[in-house]
């Protein structure tokens, strides 16, 4: 499973400090690009009330949910304290300019 990478686009398709959505039958996955061109992928659902994280403001290695401003760590999907919660993260990597995403979720949090 883990080597089941899908090419989802090129780096330039995703704005710096922004995100794009990959739609799957199991729900949307947000692919984030930080100011340093690091890539992260999370289930596009805030652990709080399900807000679309892809629409939030990306800062450092965090995203602020657009609904109630929870801050979520991009690396592991954990809410930043004192909020508590976790959203599933997915492996994502860059091959040259190609953004590769795996639909096999990372282990680590039960998520939703």
């Amino acid at each position, binding site marked *: 499973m883990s080597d089941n990478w899908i090419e989802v686009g090129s780096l330039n398709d995703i704005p710096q400090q922004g995100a794009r959505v*990959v739609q799957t039958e199991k729900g949307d996955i947000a692919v984030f690009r930080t*100011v340093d061109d690091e890539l992260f992928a999370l289930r596009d659902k805030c652990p709080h009330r399900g807000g679309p994280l892809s629409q939030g403001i990306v800062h450092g290695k965090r995203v602020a949910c657009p609904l109630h401003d929870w801050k979520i760590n991009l690396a592991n999907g954990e809410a930043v304290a004192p909020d508590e919660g976790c959203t599933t993260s997915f492996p994502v990597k860059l091959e040259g300019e190609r953004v590769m995403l795996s639909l096999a979720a990372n282990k680590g949090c039960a998520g939703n």
Partner: protein
Amino acid sequence: MKEKLVVIGNGMAGIRTVEELLKVAPDTYDITVFGAEPYGNYNRIMLSPLLAGEKTIDDIMLNDEQWYVDNGITLHKGKEVTEIDRVGRRVVAVDGSSEKYDRLLIATGSTPFIIPVPGNDLEGVVSFRDIHDVDRMLQAAKQHKHAVVIGGGLLGLEAANGLMQQGMSVTVVHLMDTLLERQLDKPAAEMLKKSLEERGLNFLMGAQTEAIVGKERVEKIRFKDGTEIYADLVVMAVGIRANTALAKKAGIHCERGIVVNDTMQTFDPRVYAVGECVQHRGITYGLVAPLFEMAKVCANHLAQYGIGRYQGTVTSTKLKVTGIDLFSAGDFHGDENTEELVFQDASRGVYRKLVVQNNRIKGAVMYGDTLDSNWYFDLMRDETDISDFRDKVLFGQAHHLGDAGHGEEQRVAAMSDDTEICGCNGVCKGDIVKAITEKKLFTLDDVRAHTKASSSCGSCTGLVEALLAHVVGGDYSTAPHLKPMCGCTVHTHDEVRAAINGQELKSIPEVMKTLEWKTPDGCPKCRMALNYYLLCAWPGEYQDASQSRFINERAHANIQKDGSYSVIPRMWGGDTTPAELRAIAEVAEKYKVKTVHVTGGQRIALFGLKKEELPAVWDDLNNAGLVSGHAYGKALRTVKTCVGKEWCRFGTQDSTRMGIELEKMTWGCWTPHKFKLAVSGCPRNCAEATIKDFGVVSVDSGWELHVGGNGGVKVRATDFLCHVKTGEEVKEYCAAFMQLYRENAHYLERTAPWVERVGLSYIKEHIVEDEEGRKKLAERFLYSQKFSQQDPWKERAQGAEKHEFEPLLQVMNEKVLVNS
């Protein structure tokens, strides 16, 4: 190898500095802390409630030993440092052990002053400084009856109250004729004395202690006039002295305290000092607020962010005796150049006095009801011109700002635990109190983060602050005078704007680099603010940073709780046509809009649209001539109007046309917060112009202009700005007012609080009295409008920002379906 930081003093100042340091630069130092007391770090301001039995030691612990372990800090508790070897850069403790340092922080606090009289070393003579003192007092209270407290200052009265609570008969001996002579004026001091006497305290005023008499244990006290009173316990509370002994011995320059500069460094730049042991710009402090500010600056410097400066603190006083509210700040005695505003109600036990010079508050004393103390304190620190509300200032902020349900009668202390404090997030008093005590919270921001109270609309902020003061104790509340924009910087909104203009900074990264931002690319708070400030400063030049905008402004629609969007086209001045309505109806049907709603701003909203559909929806609306209503932005929203004299039998002017012209002039304009206008055709004011940011009310002789109204979180009626004769003048004044607001207000500050902050006089000075200035402001407004009046919907309907509205990819059964 990490550098070594050694901290001498395990009290509030030293550990607060370490906490601040861990926040900004957690991995910079190996930290070692020496504390003379055998405890972790506790909240020394809470010793009085501890003595009174209202708190336990656990309640007042700030950092237990696990905290030191968790943060990799070596703690030597119960180990006094006896020597600093500055040449060898090491400290030596009482047991002979030593520790090397690269940087040293001295936070040795203060020691109580013991009056030099015979018998001051007898058993039963104690000071009131640490947990050990409190233990000794509590022991004494169990076995003995008569306590004498020498000193009628804050500490003395708190000690006396505590001992009385423990069942002792207590006499307070004071050298002066009035209590708290450094904190209160005579009338307030008399009220306090009377109230404390009613509770059972005895006072001996004007009494000078000559000797403390006894064999081993104290038995009585003798005064200069020869009188004597029985005493089994004597508490010396006549003042504190900065504890400079160790620093002096090490050859560090000391006067009344260890002399430090604005970065909290002593004359030896490797050696820092904070807290009650320091003397900064000639002043020593004995309160907690300055100490927190010092800690922040010191931590910044230790972290090598050489940007923070400590510039002294204006302090205020509160007494921590339950049930007695008093407050004082500044120069409350006044002199021949000052005036006094006094409110006194003896039977309610309320007294307040403000000392005023040139319409600025110089000092304040309050007794009996101190709910407004923070407000007076802010007015004093900001040197706010109070002439606009001088007639009402004594009645408090609620009276001045209007009372939106959180009136002053709601005393937080008296509230039950299930009283809802924050209506947005459903947070009750009990939740907040629990979080404050369990999580050791000290600041409003902490409470916001942990409970969410006051983090949404902000209308309960005053109540939360009052609760914090109530739970944590008196002087928590003196939040830093000038608040930084956010945690990413030490600079205030005003400083950042000044730098943008003065140093011609033209992008967010440039601002962050020049002003030494602490985070790589900021946070949502500062990014949104910076984007606005840059846009306002450099119209036509600045490239809008869409990733630094909140989603609504980035997508030009309002996100809803299910992730769908709403769309509200502009209806100029509230006018519409059958063709427009038909177009809206067709869009609603074509895209299966779930809700069609008439808004409060005289427009029609379509709810439940998918983001991908937005460009097509806009294209359809554009074809009928409808453009973005900016209902999603910190921007000009609507211009509400009534039909005016075209139809109304009472109308005095054509208010609808005026509204349309104003909207045509102002639409598309970005502002610090949302901005609403209204034009009413007569003083009946059907368009509700007097709760808008800029309201116009037609009268027979022309137009009345009103500013700073708000119908939202806190209802505020507008202030009357002026009367003008022509429609051209209405537009010029409106443009000038909006530009003044755009250039001067802080991001996310509505006109209502802004007008209150800067004062109506300031607005009048720039808009009404200075014709040339007004014209320039209006010119600048119209110039910036040249670049902002392109319909964002049209641009996007034609393909701009495509990535914003399309998924990157659709995948079904692990197969790629659509690749954008």
